[in-house]
């Protein structure tokens, strides 16, 4: 694989950490501007609302239509915003993607202008008597509330979110990435603006860049666009304790055709843990590939599910298994899953499965260098986990994982909560 490693730069007087990767492989220049904020039930709703309100109006672009039309004129530059949750972090994400100048008429470089637009949205909001515009705040409150209500439209995502809520009750991780509907309702434009002032002054800014621009040029553009800030805080690692308690089973009924099963486990392992590569292999062997145990047994051998897979949340230390099943086959499915789990614990593992899984994981990591957003995503998760591990180092460690490491690491993982979204009646 190539040396697709980011160079890291810290600008304390700006509160900016810049991660730069120069390559001429892509037809675009891509940038992600991430503000990591601690996930907290008290501030989550205001945090979630903030970027959408900022996007609606800035000094340079008072109306959304002005901003969008400018971006369209800049050859459909994509400037979008979203809020995500990684571990107990709420991430405000601004994404920028511009066409590389080689593919534009007159080879005009539009990147500096778009970085300026992004900075203006973040730091020069449109104010009315010192506050955000009421119409924008009210409009975005409504949209966010709808987002929360319509989580129920996607049954798979809803069931997973409910599983997390039940599993992590009382922990920040149980907070939804968009916060809470009732709290959003109560926020005034004044309160939101005061909250913005705190974020503007104190929140760290992580900027990731992949594209065909030298580091010197990028630094110059970023530093001339983004304002000085002095009191910026640093991020700390999440706690990943595994609480000792009996398993919970929660069943919720809904008018659906197919039951959505989610089983939540605690791994107590994040990316800094020496067992992390072994956990990746264990999860891969168990359920994250089509050649994995769960897909082969539950779907291929028994025909019980169309989808079944496992995934890990590497910042909070969780593993979940999700499956779409017929409600009559709830017990049978759980039995098969537990059975496979026990077999892996007991070391009933084929060398070839471990080999396939390691190959697939390494292949995924290598292939990630073909996609600028995958590269930036991995770099961001590493930053949150306070590890500077390169993809090459992780690949080397995965290759060293042995069959007995898989059993050993899975032994650290504790089943916590079963959440089943069950159809109300036979259909």
């Amino acid at each position, binding site marked *: *694989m*190539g040396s697709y490693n980011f160079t890291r730069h810290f600008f304390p007087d700006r509160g900016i950490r810049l991660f730069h990767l120069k390559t001429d*492989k892509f*037809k*675009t220049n891509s940038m992600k501007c991430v503000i990591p904020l601690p996930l907290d039930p008290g501030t989550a709703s205001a945090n979630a609302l903030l970027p959408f309100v900022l996007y609606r109006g800035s000094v340079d672009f008072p*109306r*959304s*239509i002005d901003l*969008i*039309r400018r971006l*369209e*004129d*800049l*050859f*459909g*530059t*994509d400037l979008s915003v979203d809020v995500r949750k990684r571990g107990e972090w709420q991430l405000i994400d601004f994404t920028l*993607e*511009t*066409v590389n100048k080689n*593919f534009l*008429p007159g080879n005009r470089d539009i990147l500096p202008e778009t970085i300026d637009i992004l900075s203006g949205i973040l730091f020069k909001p449109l104010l009315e008597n010192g506050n955000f515009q009421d*119409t924008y705040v009210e*409009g975005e409150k409504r*949209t966010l509330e*709808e*987002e929360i*209500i*319509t*989580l*129920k439209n*996607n*049954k798979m995502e809803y069931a997973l979110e409910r599983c997390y809520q039940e599993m992590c009750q009382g922990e920040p991780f149980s907070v939804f990435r968009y916060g809470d509907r009732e709290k959003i309702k109560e926020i005034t434009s004044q309160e939101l603006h005061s909250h913005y002032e705190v974020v503007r002054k104190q929140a760290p800014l992580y900027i990731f860049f992949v594209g065909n621009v030298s580091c010197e040029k990028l630094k110059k553009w970023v530093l001339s666009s983004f304002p000085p800030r002095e009191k910026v805080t640093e991020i700390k690692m999440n706690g990943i304790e595994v609480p000792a308690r009996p398993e919970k089973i929660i069943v919720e009924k*809904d*008018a*659906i*055709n*197919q039951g959505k099963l989610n089983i939540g486990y605690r791994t107590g392992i994040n990316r800094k843990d020496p067992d992390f590569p072994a956990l990746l292999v264990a999860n891969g062997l168990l359920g994250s*590939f*089509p*050649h994995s145990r769960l*897909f*082969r047994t539950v*779907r*291929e051998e028994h025909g019980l*599910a*169309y989808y079944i897979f496992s995934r890990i949340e590497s910042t909070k230390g969780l593993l979940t298994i999700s499956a*779409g*099943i017929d409600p009559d086959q709830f017990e049978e499915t759980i039995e098969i899953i537990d059975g496979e789990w026990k077999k892996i614990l007991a070391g009933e593992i084929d060398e*070839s499965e471990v080999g*396939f*899984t390691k*190959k*697939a994981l390494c*292949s995924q990591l*290598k*292939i990630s260098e*073909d*996609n*600028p957003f995958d590269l930036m995503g991995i770099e961001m998760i590493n930053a949150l986990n306070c590890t500077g591990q390169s993809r090459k180092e992780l690949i080397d460690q995965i290759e060293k994982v042995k069959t007995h490491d898989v059993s050993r690491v899975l032994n650290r993982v504790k089943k916590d909560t079963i959440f089943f979204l069950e159809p109300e009646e036979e259909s």
Partner: protein
Amino acid sequence: MAGLKETLLKETPKIKEFGSGLTAALWNIPGYQKKYALLGSPLGSIHTKIKIHGEEKKIPEGTAHFLEHKLFADKESGNLFDYFASFGASCNAYTSLTGTSYLFSTSENLSKCLELLLDFVQNLHMTPTSIQKEKKVILQEISMYKDHPGWQVFYNLLQNLYHQHPIRNDIAGTKESVLSIGEEILKFCHDTFYHPKSLLLAVIGDLDMEEIIETIEKNQERKTFLPAAEFDFVNLDEPQEIRQKETRVKFSIGQPIIQLGFKINDNPSGGKPLLERDLAFALLSDILFGTGSPAFYEMYDEGLIDDGFSAGFSGEETFGHFILGGGTNHPEKLIERLLEIIKKAKTEGISEGDLERAKKKIWGGFIASLNSLEVLAGQFVKDYRRGLEIVDHFSSLEGINKGQLEYLLTEQLEEEKASISIVEPK
């Protein structure tokens, strides 16, 4: 925009036909880790009737998808996923309206993966038991989609727009049609639509051309094939009128979802005209309903739509529809407004400035999408079957004038050809 063609053409696929009749496009793109291959059959979900040896033959709905599942779950020769996994590769397959695609991506062992891909797609094994088991999985799949309100609203709309065109049903077919599929029809479809003459292989990535050509050549020489049968897909007589004006269903959801759809009857034939229609509709929908249109944020601020609102066209030689909608708390008001916007645009026409801006946006978006090898390969297969090349997208886009948009607007978006589909909370 001169010079762009050369920049893009730095990388063009090499087309090669092999002795078996298989056509392959080999596309060398240096610097990528991933190597990606896609083997496509022309049998899609909308092909439910063909003419062969002078006779018409029916194909049950969902057969293309069933065959995809069956080739994939080939138990006679072991688990396919395991074989690919042993080479460090991952494989997948999907059925679309107009074709079935089998694909893998890998960073190593490209030749072994290619052989595996060709072997499993070109050999059909089945037993009555394996067919029965696959039916169970497919019925679970159909059942899963039925829990998606977005899927429901869309298919209810297609059922309103079309009387008998197979597009009105799920790609997987219906429960009844899936149960009716048996060994005979699967074998017939495999013989006919998976003959090397019908298949198209696209390989893309940082490639060793000679090695790949040799691999494919040897693989095809080892196999014997029946003579290729000439066939034509037969179009069902689809009336111009819509079947039904409106559908409403209740669902366990938080907010109503609506779609307003127009049946488009002017269906061109040939690659260029089809591409031009796709592009003209994309421009029109951006100008009227995109986030840069005056209407979008007006509706947004009034609480009629959220950022999930979308508008778009889908069409081939036998069908076409323009659909718009999304989640809303005011279904009736939104539908009324959307119809008003179209009506107003019909009298006011399209402005040159809006058209130029929309063109720039589509240009940039298309270039950005070409970062992905999957998109490149998928686009190539679609274009090749339509007789087009990637650069045609740019020349066609540049050539579109406002008259074409106004024609679609005034002549094709007719209110009497419109239908609505609503999913409401229980």
